[in-house]
């Protein structure tokens, strides 16, 4: 008994996780990828952000239902000159966060190219989330929510708007991608045991696997219901019709 308690404590202490997922964050320069990530990992807006040089790395552990998921986040430079470098990091990513700026129409129009690139270079079951950043600047909006949502539905990606300034919806894209990936694992499309899938089991999940033969995700659906009222996106399922 004492041992079990000890284990529980250690779990909290060390941030063990069930799954490890690799994400890549892409999009045109100046759309706020680094700020979005910074707000997500540090829970604060990043002032006076410089252009990212090449690729930057950070990690964060999130909780989704009963699952603890460690995210390895690769933040890429949006500038054209780094394209050759950043493309190399798509390899083996399980999730991609496509970021555009709702006040900059060009950044949205280029999304198709970015998505094609990502689908071509990353793992085949790549989960993509389209994020319209800078949702706090409604007055300068150049890309309508409906338009982006339609594009997302056509291209089979999740969509939502967020603000790296106000922190509105800041965790949602990462959790959304994680949930999709978990569902893929559950349905057997993704196998975390194979290298290059961008997902792998953590120690906690492995322990659970050995203790019970069946991996249960029962908590997931509950968590989704709980979350859905908090998130702002209506077009939850990628195949859903847009209003």
């Amino acid at each position, binding site marked *: 008994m004492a*041992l079990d308690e000890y284990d529980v404590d250690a779990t909290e202490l060390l941030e063990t996780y069930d799954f490890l997922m690799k994400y890549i964050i892409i999009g045109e320069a100046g759309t706020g990828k680094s700020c979005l990530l910074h707000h997500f990992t540090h829970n604060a807006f990043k002032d006076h952000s410089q252009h990212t040089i*090449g690729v930057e790395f950070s990690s964060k552990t999130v909780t989704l239902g009963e699952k603890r998921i460690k995210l390895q986040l690769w933040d890429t430079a949006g500038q054209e000159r780094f394209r050759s470098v950043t493309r190399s990091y798509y390899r083996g990513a399980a999730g991609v966060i496509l970021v555009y700026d709702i006040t900059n129409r060009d950044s949205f129009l280029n999304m198709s190219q970015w998505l094609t690139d990502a689908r071509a270079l990353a793992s085949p079951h790549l989960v993509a989330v389209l994020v319209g950043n800078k949702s706090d600047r409604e007055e300068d909006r150049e890309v309508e929510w409906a338009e982006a949502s339609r594009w997302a539905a056509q291209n089979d990606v999740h969509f939502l708007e967020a603000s790296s300034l106000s922190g509105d919806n800041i965790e949602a894209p990462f959790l959304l991608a994680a949930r999709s990936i978990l569902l893929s694992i559950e349905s057997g499309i993704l196998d975390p045991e194979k290298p290059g899938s961008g997902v792998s089991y953590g120690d906690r999940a492995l322990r659970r696997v050995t203790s019970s033969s069946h991996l249960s995700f029962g908590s997931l659906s509950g968590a989704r219901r709980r979350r859905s009222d908090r998130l702002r996106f209506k077009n939850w399922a990628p195949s859903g019709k847009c209003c």
Partner: protein
Amino acid sequence: MSVQARSPVPPPSSLSVPSRNAGTPASASQTRNPITIRLRKILGTNFTDEATTEALQTLSELYGTQSTVSVSDSKAQTNGTDSDDNWSDEDVDVGLAVQDDSACLNETASRARKNLRRDLENKLAQGSQQFLQAFSEVDQKLDELQNHVAAMRVACDEAETQLRLSSEASQSLLDRAESLRSEREEVETRKSIVMLFLNRFTLSDEEAEAITSRDVPIGPRFFEAMNKTERIRNDCRVLMSGEDGPTKAGLDIMVSTSSYLEQGYEKIYRWCSFQFRQMGRDAQLEVDSTMQQAISRLSQRPELLSEALTFLTQTRQTGLLSAFLDALTRGGPSGLPRPIELHAHDPIRYVGDMLAWVHQAIAAECEFLESLFGLGGQNDDSKARRMVGAVRTFKGSEEEGWVKELLNSAVTKLCVPLKVRVQQTVRSQESSIVSYKVANLLQYYMLTMRRTIGEDALLSTTLSEITDVSYKVFFDAIEAHGRALLRIPLDSDDPSLTPPLPILEHAQLLREIMQVYDSSLLDDTTAEPGQTFNRILDVMLDPAMEMCAAAAEEKARYRPQWDRAVFVLNCWCYLQNVLEAFEFTSEKRHTIQEKIDERVKSLEDEHYENILRDASLYDTVTIIKSKTPSDPLSHVLPAQKLQPTLARFSLWLSSPEVVHSPRLSALTSPSLHSTIHRVSLARVTKAYAQLCEEVRKPENRYEAASTLLGMERPFGQAGVLWAIFGLEEESEESAAD
């Protein structure tokens, strides 16, 4: 008062007595008389109380027994009671009281009255006698009792003595018992102290088992026992450092605990080594708390730790190597993502993919190692760190040292396959632009890795090596290109003066290289812009410029008609123009400008002479310059010879060449064309002005000098000539230059 209370009749109060006797005349006057008082008292006595009744009853019984008289006597007595006489006290009263009784009664009464005293005395004596007898009996009994008491006392004394004796005798026993008890208590205390001591300074069997036994896994129980061992040693050390110096027990404890401790560390070491051997298989690693604690404990024994970590290093090295080779040759599950080597034909992508893979592997490895040493998230609240971009500062703690070293050694084995592949790719590149791109990419990663794993790490040095190699390959390529350019002769049949095709191609290459540099991956802030690029510019441009000049010289030898100077200027200007778009080339542009200026100068001279010739002033100007001051000019150059010259000059002034030089129009730069032409025209004007001045001078002995000059345009006036050429008149000072 109790007598009154007991009376059956209502008791006559003391107040009723005087009221009853109120009729007595004597009472009123003689209240103080003692006799009165006595009388009153007697009168006041109540005989109805029980005591009196009893006494009278007894009296009547005394006499009643003698005769019937006694009955009448008693009757008399009852009668007497009715009267208020007090015969029991005074005979007189009695006599008075019974006086009135009958005769029979009188006899008895009188006898009784006579004998009463005696009878009473007899009775009294008799009673006393009886008392005496009774008391003597009692006395006797008391004597007996006394004897008994005495006997008892003796016995008691005896017993007491006995008791005292026995008590004295038992005293020693009691003392003994007392001392034994205290001794026992002391022993108990000592026992508990010893127990505490043992608890504190020795390991229980269970704990010893936890440390030594192979069956007990590394875990909380084991760590607890280790903690205790450590604590014992610390406590013991404190105790032994006292004034008494080390005790034997202390030494024993130190010896035994140190053996346990060593066994414990040995056990951790074995466990860690075992665990580390397992760690090579997974690409992503996680550290549990037991492992973390084991490592932090083992850091107390650096030699064991480093030995254990060598296993980790080995497994990680082989693990990473095989993962790298898998990624290179096999790709992800079911071949997706594709193996990196599939893109070997695209050198940028191939090299970039490999380096990105290594970079990501390092990030994961670094996280793993930091959590192994418990460093993760320590410095940062949000547990998110930047690995790239932000320069990692190793604060030099022991753990960070380990992390750095392990990270270095874990990726060591990646260096060889990486180096081989990159070098192969770089060497096989024919396009210098691609080699330049690869070199740039390598340099970017070199700087990234330096920031991540330090400059001394093998991977950093390897990257720096292959970066140097790729730069060398690039420079070799462009140097070879330059050398090849030098060997190319110009097409001698081509009359055109524009830059030849090889130069255009060369310039295009340069342009591309500059574009790559401009969009360089490197941080602009690090180096001074252009500083690093100057060498490339030198290597690229110097041979090109040299080639233009040399080849033009060569061609001019066969074709003197061909305008060499204009051609060189055209080429150089073209090259300079290529640089124009990029800011970082300013230095090189400047040096080129200097060379161009030189060439322009000579072209200006040439052009000036050409104009003088065309304007037929050449000979005249030469004569003026070469003449001796003593000789008048008119002797060397007579007026009739000068006059047609001036006429021809006037004619030339009407030709279009004044405005536009056909020769210079071949110059690609219009500004250069007009500058050179204007400068030459200005010099012509100055030469004309000098001519006029000479002609007008009296010592040159021209007749009608002004007429001679005024016959033809510009009528001997330099100002007019300035106007014709459309130039601003230059001041004398600047003209003298």
